[in-house]
């Protein structure tokens, strides 16, 4: 079943025939996913019934109102990286914002930018840097949509200083019933975009949660996002050519430290100490596989190096210092970091060493992220066994050790995942270590059995977490029925609110929570 009769014409009349398309050559492009399992299990089966290209908020309202009238489904997207952007039902259109790609405004004094949904991080950061400002960029890469990423997650390299889920200010949000809701200071026509909390009831609380609604709550058409001070050059200081980029930041304002600890517990202690000392801009445990795949010019290089590199690169903490104020700040913070490392028996990886040569790109990655596409080269597929659950640094460590790594080891035994015995994650500090999140990385072939092993293990992390009453992995769609009953039945409240704003259930209907629990 495609679109209901008359719907395509209504959309074509409203948007112009050139802004809607159902040619399979185009729609197929929206039905496949990097993650083989989701492609086969979910899409592939369904191309979108059409793709529409709105130019304005009003166009988006029109599309959503037509969808309500004719009763078909739609999914708003950014750059389509996330599996829930592929249709799971036939009568679904994609709202692709490719024509909504302007940076509307940059307020350099009050440190924000107003963007449309197709503006990427790379684009925005390049403009912001001209004004001594920057933004934290998701590890998904600088090529993703700023709006989509802030709607979904927004975990960036510099989250230790710039926070997580703290980036959104005023928004124009087309609700699933077609109404235009102004969030934050946009609610007062005489104010502008500078603030995200609403006057009266703070409906910003409905915009997302620890992760987003995957298009299940309408579409944000404009968003003001926070920018942050940046003391670097006006153009991102990159040298070399793909795949051998190098960054070259002024040393008196930017300093990368790669620190090895005798064990992972000491690394965790160091993260706490750095947080309590209120130093640094980026703090991550960096696993060997991630660092090496980011630095490898070819797949062959990776596989030649990996066995030995995995032995040497263990329990490494990457700490990037940024002198927001002056070189004095760097000098002081380095002194504090030196003391912490000494107290905990850590050692700095020497500049000039081979390990340093492989790891040195890390500073560029924190500021303009772009390596995640490279992670797919190792085996064809890549993801994390669990993650996107936020609590303390200790909790991240415990989640990782108690049930994530045991699941990885099971997958390795079955031959599904690439060998890795480091027990090192991409474990991240946010907001000076007030909270944290961890992602144990796995690499697997573009193969359905391995894909199933991944997705089942991922779901199993939710089961294991609620069994232990520990922080859960982000529960995708139906997985909310695993976590909800243990967690104050939040899924029922979410469903009630979804139904209230989306009475005909046309906005990516199975998200954030499907109406019915999964069968079996």
């Amino acid at each position, binding site marked *: 079943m495609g679109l209901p009769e008359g719907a395509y014409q209504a959309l074509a009349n409203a948007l112009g025939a050139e802004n809607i398309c159902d040619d399979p050559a185009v729609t197929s492009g929206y039905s496949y996913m990097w993650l083989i399992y989701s492609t086969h299990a979910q899409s592939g089966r369904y191309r979108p019934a059409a793709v529409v290209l709105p130019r304005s908020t009003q166009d988006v309202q029109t599309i959503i109102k037509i969808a309500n009238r004719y009763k078909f489904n739609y999914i708003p997207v950014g750059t389509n990286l996330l599996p829930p952007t592929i249709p799971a039902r036939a009568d679904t259109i994609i709202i692709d914002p490719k024509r909504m790609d302007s940076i509307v405004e940059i307020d350099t004094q009050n440190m924000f930018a107003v963007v449309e949904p197709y503006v990427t991080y790379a684009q925005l950061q390049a403009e912001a840097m001209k004004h001594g400002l920057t933004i934290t960029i998701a590890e998904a890469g600088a090529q993703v949509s700023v709006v989509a990423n802030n709607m979904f997650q927004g975990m960036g390299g510099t989250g230790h200083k710039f926070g997580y889920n703290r980036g959104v200010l005023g928004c124009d949000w087309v609700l699933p019933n077609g109404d235009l809701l102004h969030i934050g200071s946009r609610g007062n026509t005489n104010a502008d975009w500078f603030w995200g909390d609403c006057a009266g*009831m703070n409906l910003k*609380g409905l915009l997302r*949660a620890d992760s987003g609604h995957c298009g299940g709550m309408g579409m944000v058409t404009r968003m003001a996002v926070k920018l942050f001070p940046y003391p670097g050059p006006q153009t991102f200081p990159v040298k070399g050519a793909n795949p051998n980029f190098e960054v070259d930041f002024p040393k008196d304002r930017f300093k990368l430290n790669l620190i090895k600890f005798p064990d992972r517990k000491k690394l965790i202690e160091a993260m706490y100490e750095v947080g309590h000392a209120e130093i640094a801009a980026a703090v991550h445990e960096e696993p060997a596989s991630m660092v090496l795949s980011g630095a490898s010019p070819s797949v062959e290089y990776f596989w030649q190096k990996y066995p030995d590199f995995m032995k040497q690169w263990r329990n490494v903490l990457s700490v990037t210092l940024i002198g927001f104020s002056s070189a004095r700040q760097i000098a002081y913070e380095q002194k504090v970091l030196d003391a912490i490392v000494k107290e905990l028996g850590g050692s700095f990886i020497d500049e000039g060493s081979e390990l340093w040569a492989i790891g040195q790109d890390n500073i560029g990655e924190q500021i303009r992220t772009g390596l995640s596409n490279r992670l797919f080269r190792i085996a064809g597929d890549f993801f994390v066994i669990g993650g996107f659950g936020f609590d303390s640094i200790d*909790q991240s460590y415990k989640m990782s050790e108690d049930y994530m790594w045991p699941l990885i080891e099971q997958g390795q035994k079955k031959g599904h995942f690439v060998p890795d015995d480091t027990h090192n994650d991409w474990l991240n500090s946010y907001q000076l270590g007030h909270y944290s999140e961890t992602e144990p990385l796995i690499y697997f072939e573009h193969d359905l059995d391995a894909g199933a092993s991944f997705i089942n293990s991922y779901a199993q992390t939710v089961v294991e977490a609620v069994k232990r009453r520990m922080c859960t992995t982000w529960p995708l769609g139906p997985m909310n029925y695993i976590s909800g009953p243990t967690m104050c039945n939040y899924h029922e409240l979410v469903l009630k609110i979804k139904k209230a704003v989306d009475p005909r259930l046309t906005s990516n209907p199975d998200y954030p929570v499907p109406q019915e629990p999964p069968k079996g």
Partner: protein
Amino acid sequence: MADTVLAKVDYLKPLEDKPYSQVVTDRQNFSSQQKACLEKLLGAEHVCTDPAALDALSRDKSHEEAGRPCCILKPENLEKLCALVKYANETSLPLTPLSSGTHTYGNALVRMGGAAIDLSGWKHIENIDHRNRSARVQPGVTYGQLQEALAKEQLRALFPLLPRRDQSVLTSNLEAQPKLIPEFNYSEPVYTMEIVMPTGDIFRTGTAALGPPELNKSDMVGPWGPGFDWNRLYTRSQGTLGIVTWMNIMAEPLPSRQKLFFTASESLQVLVDFTYRVQRKWLGYDCFILNRTALALMLAQSMPGDYERLKKRLPAYIQIFCIGGLRRFPDERIAWQEADFLETARECGLAPQPGISQAPRAAAFFEQNLLRCWDGELYWKDRLKGASSDIFFVTTMNRTSRFVEAMHQEAIKVSVPTDDMGIYVQPIENGRACHLEFMLPYDPVDRYDCSRMRNLHGSASRRMYGLGALFTRAYGAWAEMVASGSAVQFQTAKMVKDVLDPKNIMNLGKLGL
């Protein structure tokens, strides 16, 4: 011609088919039965119907109309509170939760009938977690109490400007009162909370949802979700969406030493420009601007003599700025920040000082009071005339001068002396926005002054709104003002209220709902 049937009204017959004496008796019975039920539920000593106590709660320090609760309820624990809310659902008894001892902005008035739930007796600090920089507090915990406990752990509470002694820490955070430290990473300081929902069910936000604290194996510092950003939705909801029974909030490293600077200027704009620059460099802790009136209200040793003297001598505006040293190399931390701060001041043509020469008490006062409640009998804002009418909102610092000018014009229109108007500018999140507050002193027993001030409060609020003020804390008449400005927002808010409070019992009439 058809017979015209005249309406017959029997003025003597009671509306009900029973004598009026019976109606009165029934009403009395209803009240005493309700009381008996509540006493059975909560214990007689936790149900108060003393007329004097009810009268005392029927007014607050705002210009809002009075409203009297039918009783004041003090449930002893969570279980009783849930039972009470369930009972209120069954009997459509409206509930208004209170946590602080003094109520300022009308949001705790029982305006549409029903009971007040007084949680100011819930005074436990449930947990202090040094490692994860958090403190879990019940609604009745005050700043003084919390800071005393935190100091033992080398931690500090995030203080608003000189709070009242009986100010609840929980409601201060629930209402998002601005904090003295604009550090981005201290902003949005609520990790998790426990809420008795309007249905009587227990809900916990963030990782606290995983179970009651005694079973929960997380550290309960994950603030988002589950499902929505409940912390944000509940912040400033003024009790309309449920009752918060504890809150886990940020507690930050206590500086081992600190250094204060006072920067004076006759122009707010000059200090605003300076503050932008300092905040952009991510320097220091406490940072805020006061005008001479606000400063004199705090520092005066006598009223009105010393106040008037100070007001004459003090510079028009002062920025107060504090640098702190932490555990490792505290002096060096202070030194580099001081050097950068003073360099920035020089670039702006300003000269920060360790004190205020015209007010020698100032240095010691702020040295002691950035982590203290106001300890005078009369609250500092009320010292001049007995009460203060406040107008405050979120804006950006570059707009503050325009608001001040408009505020002066409004005051002059009703002959309120502008030099008695206190002004407080609190940068938020490294200066990307600010809280701007005007304090208008008036005499609460002088009816003329009250009515003049009520009018000024209304007209000036509308003027500020017209200039783009964001009344995030939409108290009293502000709620209607903002609701009428954004129909979809109001409609969506009502939808949320209907879903979460289907029987419509929680703090009726607040937020315009």
